[in-house]
């Protein structure tokens, strides 16, 4: 199975260097530490699990291609995916400021037309803008079936996937015929969430996303990474969404002590307006 996995880098939420808002109300990203969007890491992990037998994580049955829209310095995010096992990478040269979900989806369609994967596998959303749009848009542009928020995936050869989606009160099971677009949720990296056609029944992975071994990090730079131009893929691409301004959430005000339950109830009604 050939799988295309789009990935994005996001500002590392654990780093003390936080996103700042500049004086003209724009997002200022200088000096930030970057890391791959966690849901995209889950997508890469899922793609790797779908193209191996579980017992041997070095031999791939099929191909995993990672693709990113971003500037040159973001290539390290692609290399990190190559180090965990992806086969090759494509970077579509673009600045974050020129992108929105729609431009990315159109670009992905163009890449899919060239690469002809069996599956486009994405994180359900990025943890920076939380838009949750690309999977749905790209499925629409391609005219392919889609399954979003996958919590489990079982593959039936190269023909179809059984996708489990967690919904209120249970799990919804879908069968999607390939080619298709699937976006993944958090639980997809649980030990038994993903089974390829080659994985032994009952095989359990370590929980979470696999580690890249040092030697794989060193070897990643020898794996193919090609660059494409956004203007070649989507001539005249323009954003449909304009961000007019950004503001940080207000700092939390200090708490107060109330004297009685009555006062509390009164304040919850009158001030907090939650009752």
């Amino acid at each position: 199975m050939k799988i295309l996995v789009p990935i994005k880098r996001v500002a590392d939420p654990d780093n003390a260097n936080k996103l700042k808002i500049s004086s003209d109300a724009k997002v200022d990203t200088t000096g930030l530490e970057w890391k791959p969007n966690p849901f995209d890491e889950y997508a890469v992990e899922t793609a790797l699990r779908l193209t191996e037998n579980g017992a041997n994580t070095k031999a791939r049955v099929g191909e995993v291609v990672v693709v990113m829209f971003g500037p040159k310095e973001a290539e390290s995010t692609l290399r990190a995916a190559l180090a965990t096992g992806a086969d090759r990478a494509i970077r579509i040269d673009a600045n974050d400021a020129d992108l929105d979900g729609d431009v990315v989806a159109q670009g992905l369609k163009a890449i899919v037309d060239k690469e002809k994967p069996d599956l486009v596998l994405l994180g359900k959303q990025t943890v920076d803008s939380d838009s949750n749009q690309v999977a749905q848009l790209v499925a629409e542009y391609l005219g392919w079936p889609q399954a979003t928020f996958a919590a489990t995936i079982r593959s039936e050869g190269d023909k179809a996937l059984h996708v489990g989606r967690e919904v209120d009160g249970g799990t919804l099971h879908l069968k999607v015929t390939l080619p298709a677009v699937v976006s993944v949720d958090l639980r997809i990296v649980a030990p038994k969430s993903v089974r390829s056609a080659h994985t032994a029944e009952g095989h359990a992975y370590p929980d979470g996303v696999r580690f890249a071994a040092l030697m794989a990090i060193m070897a990643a730079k020898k794996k193919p990474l090609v660059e494409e131009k956004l203007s070649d893929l989507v001539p005249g691409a323009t954003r449909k969404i304009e961000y007019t301004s950004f503001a940080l959430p207000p700092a939390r005000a200090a708490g107060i002590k109330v004297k009685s339950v009555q006062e509390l109830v009164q304040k919850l009604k009158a001030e907090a307006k939650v009752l």
Partner: protein
Amino acid sequence: MSKPIQAINRYKADLREMSFLLFEQFRLGELLGRGPFENWGEDEVRASLAECYRWAREVIGPLTASADATGCKLEAGGVKTPQGFKDAWTKLYEAGWKGIAVHPEYGGAGAPHVLQILVEEILSGANTAFTMYSGLTHGAAEVIEAFGTPEQKKFYCQPMYNGKWAGTMCLTEPHAGTDVGSNRTSAKKNADGTWSIQGTKIFISGGDQDLSENIIHLVLARVEGAPPGTKGLTLFIVPKTRVSADGAIQEPNDVSVGAIEHKMGINGSATCVLNYGENGKCIGEPVGGDSKLNQGMAQMFRMMNGARIMVGVQGLAVGSAAFLNALEYAKDRKQGSSIANFKDATAPRVPIIEHADIRRMLLDMKARVEGIRALAIKLCHHQDSLRSLGAGDDQKIAYHQGQVDLLVPLVKSYGSDQAFRVCELAIQTYGGAGYTRDYPVEQYCRDSKIFSIYEGTNHIQAMDLVSRKLSQAGGANFQSFIGDISKFVAENSAHPVLGASVKSLGSAHEALGGAAMKLLTWFHTGQVSMVPLNANRFLDMMAEVTVAWLLLDGARIAHEKLAKLDAAQPDHAFYSGKIQAALYYARNVLPGVDDKARLMLEEDRSPLDIEDAAFATV
């Protein structure tokens, strides 16, 4: 009922600070991409640190407190390591972190030392006791790689570098600790050409464990008829289990574990009494073969640099973890109100980080930790520069090698001493919570005490500095060191922000030069016992001068970068922190160097003059 120990990771590292040192202060980029680091670029260095950090936090970090609580057990003659260690050992070697600087010939990645020690910092910081086993293994393999016969290298190095087998360093005996020359373990040549080993070693880290298929002990022993003292010691390769020529595991080699120690810290690391040849059936071979008898100490000495640097880095690792945990707690714990509102009993409670004394402790810890890290990187950068030089550049080779030799005792001693002090301050920052096992700092404090003792006590390091290193190359190494600082002082004493501190550095490094002269005078005027009396003090002075220099140099770079950033930008706080830490150290620690120099000139002899009976009446 006592509270259960939780399997959660407490380790944190500041990767931004690490990348600052590597790429901004020490310009590692200039050494990358060409021999012998042709496979390494900035991306690989950053990716390795990030991934190693993730690995350490997820795999070994969660075992730290539980391993401390359970410790090691001696069961049926063998050591049982804490739960999770075996699995972590397998994962460590799968991930390849121990091979980062190993020569590609043995399956390693040939990385620069500056990166290797940061990886070591991360592993040791996440779990000190666990990392001991692989640390000793690596050191033992390096000895065989450096001095073994071609057959020994081929046979032992690869399996020791890839974790199939482990290794130990067996020097200490009950009556021979610091005094290695009193070693009594004996070696006797057999008719079949093998050597029989007999004796008892104590305090052997990783002397036994259940992690690897075999253990290769490196044992200092005296061949029958060899001269007394260190000159008569030979280093033997003694496997726990015998191995056939094709590498198959065979019968036990008569090495038994007499006991394991119950210790203050590093409880997950088994510290063993080992008996060799109780049944006359323990065989070994000299490292380098029979032509290398009586060269054990020389071989050990060459390798000690690496081991001593690693102990300093253990200190750095634990000290840094203690600081970062204390910092997190200080931002969270609310207690008292701001001193500005001292009259108002209802003033809002503030996080303790707002109290001046807490801020003092935090900045003190930050400056010391970052100072030790810069010191260790400085040393390793000399090693990497050395490796990058082609043959023929004799002057530069001599310079870098000289600086390495000079800085090793500083990294070992200052790194380990300061680590313990930082841990103590971290506990103080927490208050009562820090004294409990709910937080990691009390364990860090216990774990870190050993660093000033093993691998040569810190006094032995200080004596190595004052009696060997200062006079090495006719004093040229020390003069180059002083010269490097003089140059920095001359170039930066008019700096708008750091100038006054740079001038203090100038005064301190002159005081240091004067103190070195004083040591020399004592040597030459029959007052030799004044030298050991002042050796540790001198080492501290030299380390403080070096750390102040490196912190100020970092601050100089931070100041340049800061000028190009506006205050809203994220790196602004990082760079200004570098400047504040350097100023703090230069203003609060560095003046002590002049004081200590003055004390040396005053030649206090009271510890020498006091009679033994006068210390106490009991």
